[in-house]
Protein backbone atom coordinates (compact mmCIF):
# COMPACT_ATOMS: atom_id res chain seq x y z
CA UNK A 1 0.00 0.00 0.00
CA UNK A 2 1.33 3.41 -0.97
CA UNK A 3 1.53 5.81 1.96
CA UNK A 4 2.75 9.24 0.99
CA UNK A 5 2.66 11.46 4.06
CA UNK A 6 1.82 15.18 4.03
CA UNK A 7 5.41 15.84 5.14
CA UNK A 8 6.76 13.83 2.21
CA UNK A 9 4.49 15.75 -0.20
CA UNK A 10 5.61 19.05 1.31
CA UNK A 11 9.27 18.14 0.98
CA UNK A 12 8.82 17.13 -2.67
CA UNK A 13 6.89 20.28 -3.58
CA UNK A 14 9.28 22.49 -1.61
CA UNK A 15 12.06 21.01 -3.71
CA UNK A 16 10.21 22.17 -6.83
CA UNK A 17 9.70 25.62 -5.36
CA UNK A 18 5.94 25.13 -5.02
CA UNK A 19 4.00 25.98 -1.87
CA UNK A 20 0.44 24.89 -1.09
CA UNK A 21 -1.83 27.06 1.03
CA UNK A 22 -2.22 25.09 4.22
CA UNK A 23 -1.80 21.73 5.93
CA UNK A 24 -5.18 20.55 4.60
CA UNK A 25 -3.93 20.80 1.03
CA UNK A 26 -0.83 18.72 1.81
CA UNK A 27 -3.07 16.10 3.47
CA UNK A 28 -5.40 16.01 0.45
CA UNK A 29 -2.54 15.67 -2.05
CA UNK A 30 -0.97 12.92 0.05
CA UNK A 31 -4.26 11.01 0.19
CA UNK A 32 -4.94 11.43 -3.53
CA UNK A 33 -1.42 10.37 -4.45
CA UNK A 34 -1.42 7.34 -2.16
CA UNK A 35 -4.85 6.21 -3.36
CA UNK A 36 -3.89 6.73 -7.00
CA UNK A 37 -0.70 4.69 -6.75
CA UNK A 38 -2.64 1.94 -4.95
CA UNK A 39 -5.17 1.99 -7.79
CA UNK A 40 -2.55 1.76 -10.51
CA UNK A 41 -0.73 -1.08 -8.74
CA UNK A 42 -4.07 -2.87 -8.46
CA UNK A 43 -4.85 -2.26 -12.13
CA UNK A 44 -1.49 -3.70 -13.11
CA UNK A 45 -2.69 -7.02 -11.73
CA UNK A 46 -6.08 -6.69 -13.47
CA UNK A 47 -5.08 -5.53 -16.94
CA UNK A 48 -2.38 -7.55 -18.68
CA UNK A 49 0.32 -5.58 -20.47
CA UNK A 50 0.06 -7.28 -23.84
CA UNK A 51 0.25 -4.07 -25.82
CA UNK A 52 2.72 -3.52 -28.58
CA UNK A 53 4.30 -0.16 -29.29
CA UNK A 54 1.07 1.47 -30.50
CA UNK A 55 -0.17 4.47 -28.52
CA UNK A 56 -3.89 5.18 -28.14
CA UNK A 57 -4.12 7.64 -30.98
CA UNK A 58 -2.35 5.31 -33.34
CA UNK A 59 -4.75 2.64 -32.20
CA UNK A 60 -7.75 4.77 -33.12
CA UNK A 61 -6.20 5.42 -36.50
CA UNK A 62 -5.88 1.67 -36.91
CA UNK A 63 -9.59 1.45 -36.17
CA UNK A 64 -10.23 3.96 -38.96
CA UNK A 65 -8.37 1.67 -41.33
CA UNK A 66 -10.49 -1.28 -40.16
CA UNK A 67 -13.66 0.76 -40.68
CA UNK A 68 -12.76 1.82 -44.17
CA UNK A 69 -11.51 -1.57 -45.38
Amino acid at each position, binding site marked *: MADYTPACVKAALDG*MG*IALQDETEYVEVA*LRLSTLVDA*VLHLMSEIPDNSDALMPHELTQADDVR*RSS
Partner: protein
Amino acid sequence: MTHEDICFAGVDALGSAYRAGTLSPVDVVRAHLERIHRFNDVLHSYVTVTDDDAFRHARDCERELRNGIDRGPLHGVPYAIKDQVTTKGVRTTAGSRLLSEWVPQTDATVVTRMRDAGAILLGKLNMCEFALGGSFQFPFGTPRNPWNLDHETGGSSNGAGSALAAGLATVTLGEDTGGSVRSPAAHCGVVGLRPTWGAVSRYGLVPAVWSMDTLGPMGRTVRDVAYALQAVAGHDPFDPTARPAGAGAYRSALARGIRGLKVGVIRDLMEDPALAPDVAAAVRRAIAVLGTLGASVGHASLPLAKHAGAAYVAFGEPEAASLHATRLRSDSAAYGHVARVRLATGLLVPGFAVRWAERVARRAITEDVFRALEPYDVLVAPTSRTTAPRLEAKQNLGYTSKDDVRAEFGLGRAYTTPFAFAGVPALAVCCGFSGAGLPVSLQIVGKRGADDVVLRAGHAYQEATEWHTRRPVLA
Protein backbone atom coordinates in the same frame (compact mmCIF):
# COMPACT_ATOMS: atom_id res chain seq x y z
CA MET B 1 -43.20 35.63 -30.36
CA THR B 2 -42.75 36.73 -26.74
CA HIS B 3 -39.24 37.55 -25.57
CA GLU B 4 -39.14 34.21 -23.77
CA ASP B 5 -40.28 32.37 -26.91
CA ILE B 6 -37.51 34.11 -28.86
CA CYS B 7 -34.95 33.01 -26.29
CA PHE B 8 -36.08 29.38 -26.50
CA ALA B 9 -36.48 29.29 -30.29
CA GLY B 10 -34.26 26.95 -32.28
CA VAL B 11 -32.04 27.72 -35.24
CA ASP B 12 -34.70 26.85 -37.84
CA ALA B 13 -37.39 28.98 -36.18
CA LEU B 14 -35.10 32.01 -36.00
CA GLY B 15 -33.94 31.53 -39.57
CA SER B 16 -37.50 31.26 -40.89
CA ALA B 17 -38.53 34.40 -39.02
CA TYR B 18 -35.51 36.33 -40.31
CA ARG B 19 -36.14 35.33 -43.88
CA ALA B 20 -39.87 36.06 -43.57
CA GLY B 21 -39.03 39.48 -42.15
CA THR B 22 -41.01 38.91 -38.94
CA LEU B 23 -37.96 39.06 -36.68
CA SER B 24 -34.48 40.50 -36.96
CA PRO B 25 -31.13 39.48 -35.46
CA VAL B 26 -31.17 42.76 -33.51
CA ASP B 27 -34.52 41.81 -31.91
CA VAL B 28 -33.17 38.41 -30.99
CA VAL B 29 -29.90 39.68 -29.57
CA ARG B 30 -31.77 42.32 -27.54
CA ALA B 31 -34.13 39.69 -26.10
CA HIS B 32 -31.19 37.47 -25.13
CA LEU B 33 -29.13 40.25 -23.58
CA GLU B 34 -32.11 41.43 -21.53
CA ARG B 35 -32.64 37.90 -20.28
CA ILE B 36 -28.93 37.43 -19.54
CA HIS B 37 -28.82 40.63 -17.50
CA ARG B 38 -31.97 39.58 -15.68
CA PHE B 39 -30.81 36.11 -14.65
CA ASN B 40 -27.03 35.97 -14.79
CA ASP B 41 -26.56 37.40 -11.30
CA VAL B 42 -28.23 34.25 -10.01
CA LEU B 43 -27.19 31.64 -12.58
CA HIS B 44 -23.62 32.85 -13.26
CA SER B 45 -23.71 31.22 -16.69
CA TYR B 46 -21.65 34.02 -18.24
CA VAL B 47 -18.26 35.35 -17.16
CA THR B 48 -18.27 38.11 -19.77
CA VAL B 49 -21.18 39.46 -21.81
CA THR B 50 -20.23 41.17 -25.08
CA ASP B 51 -23.25 43.49 -25.43
CA ASP B 52 -21.76 46.09 -27.76
CA ASP B 53 -20.04 43.63 -30.08
CA ALA B 54 -23.18 41.50 -30.20
CA PHE B 55 -25.41 44.44 -31.19
CA ARG B 56 -22.87 45.59 -33.77
CA HIS B 57 -22.71 42.11 -35.31
CA ALA B 58 -26.49 41.76 -35.17
CA ARG B 59 -26.90 44.98 -37.16
CA ASP B 60 -24.38 43.63 -39.71
CA CYS B 61 -26.33 40.38 -40.00
CA GLU B 62 -29.60 42.26 -40.38
CA ARG B 63 -28.10 44.34 -43.18
CA GLU B 64 -26.64 41.29 -44.93
CA LEU B 65 -29.89 39.36 -44.81
CA ARG B 66 -31.81 42.39 -46.10
CA ASN B 67 -29.34 42.64 -48.99
CA GLY B 68 -29.65 38.98 -49.90
CA ILE B 69 -26.35 37.85 -48.40
CA ASP B 70 -27.20 34.56 -46.71
CA ARG B 71 -24.52 32.78 -44.69
CA GLY B 72 -26.72 29.76 -43.97
CA PRO B 73 -28.70 28.44 -41.02
CA LEU B 74 -26.62 30.08 -38.26
CA HIS B 75 -26.82 33.54 -39.81
CA GLY B 76 -28.00 35.87 -37.04
CA VAL B 77 -28.20 33.10 -34.44
CA PRO B 78 -26.90 34.07 -30.97
CA TYR B 79 -24.35 31.75 -29.40
CA ALA B 80 -21.89 31.75 -26.52
CA ILE B 81 -18.66 29.91 -25.89
CA LYS B 82 -16.85 28.37 -22.94
CA ASP B 83 -14.28 30.79 -21.56
CA GLN B 84 -11.57 28.27 -22.37
CA VAL B 85 -11.57 29.40 -26.00
CA THR B 86 -9.68 32.49 -27.14
CA THR B 87 -11.58 35.46 -28.50
CA LYS B 88 -9.76 38.39 -30.05
CA GLY B 89 -10.23 41.50 -27.96
CA VAL B 90 -12.46 39.74 -25.41
CA ARG B 91 -10.93 38.49 -22.17
CA THR B 92 -10.52 34.76 -21.84
CA THR B 93 -10.21 33.56 -18.24
CA ALA B 94 -10.40 29.75 -18.47
CA GLY B 95 -12.32 30.11 -15.22
CA SER B 96 -9.21 31.24 -13.33
CA ARG B 97 -8.24 34.37 -11.46
CA LEU B 98 -4.83 33.92 -13.09
CA LEU B 99 -6.26 34.92 -16.47
CA SER B 100 -8.86 37.43 -15.27
CA GLU B 101 -7.25 40.22 -17.31
CA TRP B 102 -6.04 38.21 -20.32
CA VAL B 103 -7.28 39.60 -23.63
CA PRO B 104 -6.11 37.39 -26.52
CA GLN B 105 -4.91 38.86 -29.79
CA THR B 106 -6.44 36.13 -31.96
CA ASP B 107 -9.67 34.20 -32.32
CA ALA B 108 -9.74 30.43 -31.97
CA THR B 109 -10.58 28.68 -35.24
CA VAL B 110 -14.05 27.73 -33.97
CA VAL B 111 -14.78 31.38 -33.18
CA THR B 112 -13.72 32.40 -36.69
CA ARG B 113 -15.87 29.66 -38.19
CA MET B 114 -18.94 30.56 -36.16
CA ARG B 115 -18.51 34.18 -37.20
CA ASP B 116 -18.09 33.16 -40.86
CA ALA B 117 -21.36 31.23 -40.50
CA GLY B 118 -23.04 34.40 -39.24
CA ALA B 119 -23.47 33.33 -35.61
CA ILE B 120 -23.44 36.22 -33.12
CA LEU B 121 -21.27 35.89 -30.01
CA LEU B 122 -23.12 36.94 -26.85
CA GLY B 123 -20.27 36.26 -24.46
CA LYS B 124 -17.99 33.86 -22.63
CA LEU B 125 -19.31 31.10 -20.42
CA ASN B 126 -18.41 30.10 -16.88
CA MET B 127 -16.41 26.94 -16.26
CA CYS B 128 -14.35 24.97 -13.76
CA GLU B 129 -10.87 26.43 -13.41
CA PHE B 130 -8.73 25.40 -16.41
CA ALA B 131 -11.36 22.73 -17.22
CA LEU B 132 -9.92 20.49 -14.53
CA GLY B 133 -13.39 19.65 -13.18
CA GLY B 134 -14.67 19.26 -9.65
CA SER B 135 -14.57 22.97 -8.77
CA PHE B 136 -16.71 24.26 -5.91
CA GLN B 137 -15.17 27.72 -5.82
CA PHE B 138 -15.71 29.87 -8.90
CA PRO B 139 -13.98 33.27 -9.09
CA PHE B 140 -16.67 34.57 -11.44
CA GLY B 141 -19.68 33.30 -9.49
CA THR B 142 -21.01 29.84 -8.69
CA PRO B 143 -22.98 28.41 -11.63
CA ARG B 144 -26.46 27.31 -10.60
CA ASN B 145 -28.77 24.84 -12.28
CA PRO B 146 -31.80 26.55 -13.88
CA TRP B 147 -34.00 23.56 -13.00
CA ASN B 148 -33.22 23.98 -9.31
CA LEU B 149 -30.92 26.74 -8.11
CA ASP B 150 -29.74 24.65 -5.17
CA HIS B 151 -28.14 22.14 -7.53
CA GLU B 152 -24.95 21.99 -9.58
CA THR B 153 -24.88 22.46 -13.34
CA GLY B 154 -22.28 19.77 -14.04
CA GLY B 155 -18.91 20.75 -15.45
CA SER B 156 -16.51 21.71 -16.59
CA SER B 157 -18.54 23.47 -19.34
CA ASN B 158 -20.91 24.68 -16.61
CA GLY B 159 -22.21 27.84 -18.25
CA ALA B 160 -22.56 26.16 -21.64
CA GLY B 161 -25.21 23.88 -20.14
CA SER B 162 -26.99 26.34 -17.88
CA ALA B 163 -27.17 29.13 -20.47
CA LEU B 164 -29.05 26.84 -22.86
CA ALA B 165 -31.44 25.53 -20.21
CA ALA B 166 -32.25 29.09 -19.12
CA GLY B 167 -32.73 30.47 -22.64
CA LEU B 168 -29.61 32.63 -22.50
CA ALA B 169 -28.24 31.43 -25.89
CA THR B 170 -29.51 29.40 -28.83
CA VAL B 171 -26.32 27.36 -29.23
CA THR B 172 -23.16 27.07 -27.12
CA LEU B 173 -19.72 25.57 -27.62
CA GLY B 174 -18.16 23.64 -24.74
CA GLU B 175 -15.09 21.48 -24.32
CA ASP B 176 -15.03 17.85 -23.26
CA THR B 177 -11.87 16.26 -21.86
CA GLY B 178 -13.32 13.35 -19.88
CA GLY B 179 -17.00 14.32 -19.92
CA SER B 180 -17.10 18.10 -19.64
CA VAL B 181 -19.67 18.71 -22.40
CA ARG B 182 -21.83 15.71 -21.58
CA SER B 183 -22.02 16.25 -17.82
CA PRO B 184 -23.49 19.79 -17.96
CA ALA B 185 -25.71 18.74 -20.87
CA ALA B 186 -27.05 15.91 -18.72
CA HIS B 187 -27.55 17.92 -15.55
CA CYS B 188 -29.08 20.90 -17.34
CA GLY B 189 -31.39 18.86 -19.60
CA VAL B 190 -29.92 19.91 -22.95
CA VAL B 191 -27.97 18.26 -25.78
CA GLY B 192 -24.18 18.05 -25.81
CA LEU B 193 -21.92 16.35 -28.32
CA ARG B 194 -18.37 15.24 -27.76
CA PRO B 195 -17.37 14.87 -31.42
CA THR B 196 -14.83 12.38 -32.70
CA TRP B 197 -11.38 13.46 -31.47
CA GLY B 198 -9.96 15.52 -34.33
CA ALA B 199 -13.28 16.44 -35.93
CA VAL B 200 -13.06 20.01 -34.63
CA SER B 201 -9.98 22.23 -34.55
CA ARG B 202 -8.59 23.03 -31.12
CA TYR B 203 -6.51 25.97 -32.25
CA GLY B 204 -7.08 28.67 -29.64
CA LEU B 205 -8.20 26.30 -26.89
CA VAL B 206 -6.57 26.66 -23.46
CA PRO B 207 -5.62 23.00 -22.98
CA ALA B 208 -6.53 20.78 -20.06
CA VAL B 209 -5.38 17.31 -21.15
CA TRP B 210 -4.13 17.76 -24.68
CA SER B 211 -4.52 14.15 -25.80
CA MET B 212 -8.22 14.15 -24.89
CA ASP B 213 -9.50 17.76 -25.18
CA THR B 214 -12.34 18.05 -27.70
CA LEU B 215 -14.48 21.08 -28.49
CA GLY B 216 -18.14 20.19 -28.71
CA PRO B 217 -21.38 21.93 -29.70
CA MET B 218 -24.39 22.09 -27.39
CA GLY B 219 -28.01 23.07 -27.96
CA ARG B 220 -31.53 22.39 -26.84
CA THR B 221 -32.08 20.16 -29.87
CA VAL B 222 -29.89 17.71 -31.75
CA ARG B 223 -30.74 19.60 -34.92
CA ASP B 224 -29.18 22.78 -33.53
CA VAL B 225 -26.11 20.83 -32.41
CA ALA B 226 -25.77 19.43 -35.94
CA TYR B 227 -25.91 22.95 -37.38
CA ALA B 228 -23.15 24.10 -35.04
CA LEU B 229 -20.99 21.05 -35.73
CA GLN B 230 -21.44 21.63 -39.43
CA ALA B 231 -20.09 25.15 -38.98
CA VAL B 232 -17.02 24.34 -36.89
CA ALA B 233 -15.85 20.89 -38.05
CA GLY B 234 -13.15 20.16 -40.58
CA HIS B 235 -9.46 20.44 -41.25
CA ASP B 236 -7.54 23.41 -39.92
CA PRO B 237 -3.95 24.14 -40.94
CA PHE B 238 -3.37 25.59 -37.45
CA ASP B 239 -4.24 22.27 -35.77
CA PRO B 240 -2.57 19.20 -37.24
CA THR B 241 -4.95 16.92 -35.31
CA ALA B 242 -8.04 18.36 -37.04
CA ARG B 243 -9.26 16.05 -39.79
CA PRO B 244 -11.36 16.76 -42.86
CA ALA B 245 -13.50 13.62 -42.54
CA GLY B 246 -17.16 14.03 -41.66
CA ALA B 247 -17.64 17.71 -42.39
CA GLY B 248 -20.65 18.11 -44.63
CA ALA B 249 -22.72 15.12 -43.60
CA TYR B 250 -24.11 16.10 -40.20
CA ARG B 251 -27.25 18.04 -41.10
CA SER B 252 -28.38 15.92 -44.00
CA ALA B 253 -28.02 12.71 -41.95
CA LEU B 254 -30.73 13.69 -39.50
CA ALA B 255 -33.67 12.92 -41.76
CA ARG B 256 -32.73 9.31 -42.36
CA GLY B 257 -34.33 7.89 -39.20
CA ILE B 258 -33.06 4.89 -37.28
CA ARG B 259 -34.95 1.94 -38.72
CA GLY B 260 -32.53 -0.99 -38.63
CA LEU B 261 -29.97 0.85 -36.48
CA LYS B 262 -28.17 -1.61 -34.19
CA VAL B 263 -28.15 -0.36 -30.60
CA GLY B 264 -26.10 -1.96 -27.81
CA VAL B 265 -27.11 -1.21 -24.22
CA ILE B 266 -24.04 -1.07 -21.96
CA ARG B 267 -24.99 -3.60 -19.33
CA ASP B 268 -22.16 -2.76 -16.90
CA LEU B 269 -23.45 0.79 -16.49
CA MET B 270 -27.16 -0.08 -16.45
CA GLU B 271 -26.45 -2.62 -13.68
CA ASP B 272 -24.32 -0.24 -11.58
CA PRO B 273 -25.73 -0.56 -8.04
CA ALA B 274 -25.18 3.18 -7.53
CA LEU B 275 -27.24 4.12 -10.61
CA ALA B 276 -30.12 6.26 -9.35
CA PRO B 277 -33.48 4.49 -9.85
CA ASP B 278 -35.02 7.57 -11.51
CA VAL B 279 -32.13 7.68 -13.97
CA ALA B 280 -32.27 3.96 -14.71
CA ALA B 281 -36.03 4.06 -15.31
CA ALA B 282 -35.87 7.07 -17.65
CA VAL B 283 -33.00 5.60 -19.66
CA ARG B 284 -34.81 2.26 -20.00
CA ARG B 285 -37.87 4.09 -21.33
CA ALA B 286 -35.66 5.99 -23.78
CA ILE B 287 -34.13 2.76 -25.05
CA ALA B 288 -37.63 1.38 -25.54
CA VAL B 289 -38.48 4.44 -27.66
CA LEU B 290 -35.46 3.72 -29.87
CA GLY B 291 -36.86 0.20 -30.29
CA THR B 292 -40.29 1.48 -31.32
CA LEU B 293 -38.58 3.68 -33.94
CA GLY B 294 -37.18 0.56 -35.61
CA ALA B 295 -33.79 0.14 -33.96
CA SER B 296 -32.73 -3.36 -32.98
CA VAL B 297 -31.59 -3.40 -29.36
CA GLY B 298 -29.05 -5.81 -27.85
CA HIS B 299 -26.57 -5.82 -25.01
CA ALA B 300 -22.93 -4.78 -24.85
CA SER B 301 -20.31 -4.90 -22.16
CA LEU B 302 -17.44 -2.65 -21.09
CA PRO B 303 -15.78 -4.69 -18.34
CA LEU B 304 -12.83 -2.33 -17.92
CA ALA B 305 -14.86 0.89 -17.84
CA LYS B 306 -14.81 0.86 -14.05
CA HIS B 307 -11.06 1.53 -14.15
CA ALA B 308 -11.32 4.62 -16.34
CA GLY B 309 -11.35 7.06 -13.41
CA ALA B 310 -8.06 5.92 -11.90
CA ALA B 311 -6.41 5.63 -15.32
CA TYR B 312 -7.57 9.11 -16.28
CA VAL B 313 -6.28 10.74 -13.10
CA ALA B 314 -2.99 8.82 -13.35
CA PHE B 315 -2.03 10.23 -16.74
CA GLY B 316 -4.41 13.19 -17.16
CA GLU B 317 -3.42 15.14 -14.06
CA PRO B 318 0.33 14.84 -14.77
CA GLU B 319 -0.36 15.99 -18.34
CA ALA B 320 -2.29 19.00 -17.00
CA ALA B 321 0.38 19.62 -14.36
CA SER B 322 3.05 19.75 -17.04
CA LEU B 323 1.21 22.74 -18.53
CA HIS B 324 1.03 24.56 -15.19
CA ALA B 325 4.31 23.67 -13.47
CA THR B 326 6.02 26.98 -14.17
CA ARG B 327 3.05 29.04 -13.04
CA LEU B 328 2.58 26.90 -9.94
CA ARG B 329 6.14 27.84 -8.95
CA SER B 330 5.51 31.55 -9.35
CA ASP B 331 1.86 31.95 -8.42
CA SER B 332 0.34 28.87 -6.79
CA ALA B 333 -1.80 31.00 -4.45
CA ALA B 334 -3.77 32.37 -7.39
CA TYR B 335 -5.18 28.94 -8.26
CA GLY B 336 -8.36 27.73 -6.62
CA HIS B 337 -8.17 24.93 -4.08
CA VAL B 338 -9.30 22.09 -6.34
CA ALA B 339 -7.02 23.04 -9.22
CA ARG B 340 -4.04 23.49 -6.90
CA VAL B 341 -4.58 20.11 -5.21
CA ARG B 342 -5.15 18.28 -8.49
CA LEU B 343 -2.15 19.85 -10.22
CA ALA B 344 0.11 19.24 -7.22
CA THR B 345 -0.95 15.60 -7.28
CA GLY B 346 -0.18 15.49 -10.98
CA LEU B 347 3.34 16.78 -10.37
CA LEU B 348 4.08 13.91 -8.00
CA VAL B 349 2.55 10.84 -9.68
CA PRO B 350 5.42 8.38 -10.28
CA GLY B 351 6.52 8.12 -13.89
CA PHE B 352 5.82 4.39 -14.16
CA ALA B 353 2.20 4.98 -13.14
CA VAL B 354 1.73 7.75 -15.70
CA ARG B 355 3.21 5.75 -18.55
CA TRP B 356 1.44 2.52 -17.60
CA ALA B 357 -1.93 4.24 -17.25
CA GLU B 358 -1.71 5.72 -20.72
CA ARG B 359 0.13 2.95 -22.52
CA VAL B 360 -1.69 -0.05 -21.05
CA ALA B 361 -4.85 1.00 -19.19
CA ARG B 362 -6.02 3.64 -21.67
CA ARG B 363 -5.32 1.32 -24.52
CA ALA B 364 -7.13 -1.63 -22.92
CA ILE B 365 -10.20 0.50 -22.14
CA THR B 366 -10.11 1.90 -25.69
CA GLU B 367 -10.03 -1.63 -27.07
CA ASP B 368 -12.98 -2.45 -24.80
CA VAL B 369 -14.96 0.38 -26.37
CA PHE B 370 -14.04 -0.68 -29.93
CA ARG B 371 -14.92 -4.29 -29.14
CA ALA B 372 -18.29 -3.30 -27.68
CA LEU B 373 -19.05 -1.11 -30.70
CA GLU B 374 -18.05 -3.73 -33.28
CA PRO B 375 -21.47 -5.42 -33.70
CA TYR B 376 -23.46 -2.23 -33.18
CA ASP B 377 -23.94 1.16 -34.79
CA VAL B 378 -24.25 2.87 -31.41
CA LEU B 379 -23.96 2.08 -27.72
CA VAL B 380 -26.35 3.63 -25.20
CA ALA B 381 -26.14 4.22 -21.46
CA PRO B 382 -27.00 6.90 -18.93
CA THR B 383 -24.80 9.98 -19.32
CA SER B 384 -24.55 10.28 -15.53
CA ARG B 385 -25.40 7.84 -12.74
CA THR B 386 -27.33 10.57 -10.85
CA THR B 387 -29.20 13.77 -11.51
CA ALA B 388 -27.45 17.06 -10.67
CA PRO B 389 -26.00 16.93 -7.14
CA ARG B 390 -26.90 19.56 -4.56
CA LEU B 391 -24.47 22.47 -4.31
CA GLU B 392 -22.27 22.27 -1.25
CA ALA B 393 -20.64 25.18 0.52
CA LYS B 394 -17.16 23.90 1.30
CA GLN B 395 -13.64 25.25 1.48
CA ASN B 396 -11.69 22.08 0.65
CA LEU B 397 -12.22 18.58 -0.70
CA GLY B 398 -12.68 17.28 2.84
CA TYR B 399 -10.67 14.11 2.31
CA THR B 400 -9.69 12.36 5.52
CA SER B 401 -9.15 8.82 4.25
CA LYS B 402 -8.40 6.87 1.08
CA ASP B 403 -12.06 5.84 0.94
CA ASP B 404 -12.99 9.48 0.37
CA VAL B 405 -10.60 9.63 -2.58
CA ARG B 406 -11.76 6.32 -4.07
CA ALA B 407 -15.19 7.86 -4.56
CA GLU B 408 -13.56 10.53 -6.76
CA PHE B 409 -11.70 7.97 -8.87
CA GLY B 410 -14.59 5.51 -8.91
CA LEU B 411 -17.34 4.30 -11.20
CA GLY B 412 -18.83 7.77 -11.70
CA ARG B 413 -16.22 8.48 -14.36
CA ALA B 414 -16.99 5.19 -16.11
CA TYR B 415 -20.04 6.77 -17.75
CA THR B 416 -18.17 9.29 -19.88
CA THR B 417 -14.39 8.85 -19.75
CA PRO B 418 -13.99 5.53 -21.63
CA PHE B 419 -15.39 7.16 -24.77
CA ALA B 420 -13.01 10.09 -24.36
CA PHE B 421 -10.11 7.62 -24.15
CA ALA B 422 -11.28 6.04 -27.38
CA GLY B 423 -11.85 9.36 -29.17
CA VAL B 424 -15.30 8.27 -30.33
CA PRO B 425 -18.34 10.56 -30.64
CA ALA B 426 -20.75 10.64 -27.69
CA LEU B 427 -24.01 12.56 -27.46
CA ALA B 428 -25.98 13.44 -24.32
CA VAL B 429 -29.74 13.90 -24.84
CA CYS B 430 -32.32 14.71 -22.19
CA CYS B 431 -34.61 11.69 -21.74
CA GLY B 432 -36.82 12.67 -18.83
CA PHE B 433 -36.93 14.16 -15.37
CA SER B 434 -36.55 12.71 -11.89
CA GLY B 435 -39.27 12.86 -9.28
CA ALA B 436 -37.51 15.97 -7.97
CA GLY B 437 -37.79 17.66 -11.36
CA LEU B 438 -34.14 17.34 -12.39
CA PRO B 439 -33.15 16.25 -15.90
CA VAL B 440 -32.01 12.74 -16.81
CA SER B 441 -29.83 12.06 -19.85
CA LEU B 442 -29.33 9.30 -22.38
CA GLN B 443 -25.84 8.93 -23.85
CA ILE B 444 -25.45 7.70 -27.43
CA VAL B 445 -21.94 6.61 -28.43
CA GLY B 446 -20.82 5.93 -31.99
CA LYS B 447 -17.88 4.61 -33.93
CA ARG B 448 -14.97 6.89 -34.60
CA GLY B 449 -15.96 9.32 -37.37
CA ALA B 450 -19.64 8.36 -37.16
CA ASP B 451 -20.80 11.61 -35.54
CA ASP B 452 -23.63 11.69 -38.07
CA VAL B 453 -24.96 8.38 -36.74
CA VAL B 454 -25.14 9.48 -33.09
CA LEU B 455 -26.79 12.73 -34.17
CA ARG B 456 -29.30 10.77 -36.26
CA ALA B 457 -30.18 8.55 -33.29
CA GLY B 458 -30.52 11.52 -30.94
CA HIS B 459 -32.62 13.46 -33.42
CA ALA B 460 -34.96 10.51 -34.00
CA TYR B 461 -35.40 10.24 -30.23
CA GLN B 462 -36.21 13.94 -29.86
CA GLU B 463 -38.65 13.79 -32.76
CA ALA B 464 -40.55 11.06 -30.89
CA THR B 465 -40.50 12.72 -27.46
CA GLU B 466 -41.11 16.14 -25.94
CA TRP B 467 -38.58 16.45 -23.10
CA HIS B 468 -36.56 19.03 -25.04
CA THR B 469 -39.54 21.38 -25.18
CA ARG B 470 -39.73 21.82 -21.38
CA ARG B 471 -38.50 25.06 -19.87
CA PRO B 472 -37.40 25.70 -16.29
CA VAL B 473 -39.35 28.28 -14.31
CA LEU B 474 -37.09 31.22 -13.47
CA ALA B 475 -38.52 33.93 -11.23
